[in-house]
C-alpha cells in the first residue's frame, strides 16, 4: 500500500511533517542506527541496565552517560490499541491503525505502530519483531508480526 511520489516512498500512516527531529535530538543514535537497519537503544555504561530513551543517569547505579548499542529486535506486545481517530492533515491512512507498547528482549519498552497497514492488531503477549518505516527522511522503528520459517506466528 506504499505509494510513491517521484522517487520518495511515502509512509503508509503519517504525513512527513511528523518526521522526528534527528540532528541534535536526544534520540539521534536511535535514528542513526535505524538508518542502517539496526535497532540501537541506550544502556547504562557501567551496569548494563536498559535506560529510558532520554535517561542520562542510571537509576540503578547512578553512573552518568548512555551506551547506545544494537539490540535483539525481538519483543512481545505489552499492550495494543487500534486508533480510530484519523487526524485530518496528519494521518494519511483511511482506516484504524495499531499502536503497540512493545517489551524488547533487552529490557526496553517502545511505543510503535506497525511496519505496514494492519487491519487486525496483534494480541497482548504476541511475539513481534522490529523493522523500520520511512517517514520523510527518517527511518523510524515499527513492529511486525514475528513468524517462523513456516509462516506461523512464533511464541514469545
Amino acid at each position: 500500500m506504499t505509494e510513491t511520489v517521484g522517487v520518495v516512498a511515502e509512509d503508509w500512516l503519517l504525513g512527513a511533517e511528523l518526521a522526528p527531529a534527528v540532528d541534535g535530538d536526544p534520540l539521534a543514535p536511535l535514528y542513526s542506527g535505524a538508518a542502517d537497519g539496526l535497532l540501537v537503544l541506550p544502556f547504562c555504561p557501567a551496569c548494563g541496565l536498559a535506560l529510558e530513551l532520554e535517561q542520562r543517569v542510571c537509576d540503578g547505579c547512578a553512573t552518568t552517560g548512555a551506551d547506545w548499542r544494537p539490540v535483539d529486535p525481538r519483543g512481545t506486545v505489552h499492550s495494543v490499541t487500534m486508533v480510530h481517530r484519523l487526524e485530518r492533515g496528519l494521518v494519511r491512512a483511511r482506516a484504524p491503525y495499531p499502536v503497540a507498547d512493545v517489551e524488547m528482549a533487552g529490557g526496553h519498552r517502545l511505543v510503535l505502530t506497525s511496519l505496514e497497514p494492519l487491519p487486525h492488531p496483534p494480541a497482548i503477549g504476541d511475539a513481534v519483531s522490529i523493522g523500520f518505516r520511512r517517514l520523510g527522511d527518517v527511518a523510524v522503528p515499527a513492529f511486525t508480526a514475528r513468524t517462523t520459517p513456516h509462516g506461523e506466528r512464533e511464541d514469545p
Partner: protein
Amino acid sequence: MSARQSAIIGLGLTPMSTKPGGSAAELAARALRAALDDAGLAHTELDGLLVGSSQGVRPDRVGVTLAAQAGLGDLRLLEHVEIKGATTVAMVRRAQLAIRTGEARTVACVFADAPLRAAGGAGSTYARSGGNSGVRGLERASGVLGSVPTYALLAARWLAVTGGSPDDLGSVALAARAWAQGNPDAVQRTPLDADTYRASPMVSTPLRRLDCARPVNGAAAVVLSPDLPAARHTPVRVIGSGRAHPVRRRRAGDESWFGGGRAAVEDALAEAGLSRGDLDVLELYDPFTIVTLCLLEEYGFCGPGQAGPLARSGALAPGGALPTNTGGGQLSGFYLQGMTPLVEAIVQLRGDGGDRQVTGARTALVGGIGGRIDHHACLVLEAA
C-alpha cells in the same frame, strides 16, 4: 509571627465553553475577578498570586505576566507553578503554607486553558501539540497524536490483566454523567444509558469518545486567606496534603499502572487525622474513565482488581456508598485539569451543590495527577 490558619474563602469560575473564544489570560482574569467578588475582596487586597497553565505548548498559556494582565500590583508572592495536572493541588498547598509562614496574607490560585480554536476542535489542538523531538517525537511519528492512544494502551492492558470488560469503563462514564445532570456548570448533562455509551464513537480501542474528558475554554480561581468573611460562604479548610512523585521507569516486565501514588493519600489523611471511611466525597482527576478505575485502586479505596466491580455496583454514582466526582468530573463536567476536582469539593463542602449535593458532606479528598500518572498530589478539605 504566629502560624496562621487559612481557608478557601473565594471561588470563581468562568462559563465553561465547548466553543472557541477567549484567550487563557482573559479567562484567567475573569475567574480571578469572580473569586475576589465571591470572597468580598478588592483586587488591591490580594498580595499573592499563583498561576497554573496547561502543560501543552500553547502560545497563549498563562504565566506570571497574568498579574499585569489582571491589573494586580504590589504582590509579595507571585509564581507560575508547574507539575502538570497535579499543579492545582500544589498551588493550594503553596498558598496555605505561604500564609502560614507570613510570606503573604491573601493568595489567589488560578488556572486557565483555551484549547478550542477557531481552526479546529480540542482534539486537533492536542493532536498537533507535542513537537517532534525526544520520546514524544518518536511517539508522534508512530501515530500517538494527543494523549488518547497512551491511555488506551493503559486501558487495554488493565482490562486484559484484571479480566475486566469495557462496561467497567462505561460504568464510570455513566456515574459521571448522572452526577453532571445536577451541575449547571457541566458541559455534558444529557442523560446517558449503557446502550448510548456502547454506541459512542471509538477513539482508540477500548476508549470511546464518552471515555474521554470534555476540554473547554475556561478558567477557575480560588482565594485563600486567614480572614474569614462574615457568613458569606462556609470557609473550606485544607486539613491534609500529600504528594508522591514515584518517577517510575517503563521497562519490560513492569506493569503499566505504575503505582507509587498511595503515599500522597496516606500522608494527606495522616495530617488530617482521618481515615478513608471518614471522607464524604472523593473528587479525583478523571481525564479518561480508565484513570478513575486506576486511582480508586491506587489510592486504596478498593482492593486489587476490584475497581471495575465497584464501578459496576453503582457505588460511585448518586446514591452510592462512595460518591465520586460529584459534579460529573472532567468526563462530563468540564476539563480544567486539577481545578475540576478542587472546585467540586468546595461546592460540596459549602453545601452549594443543589441537585447533586451530597447530604451532610463535611470532608473531601481532592486528587490531582500529572504526566502519565507520574505525579500525585492530594488534599483533604473540611468545611470549617
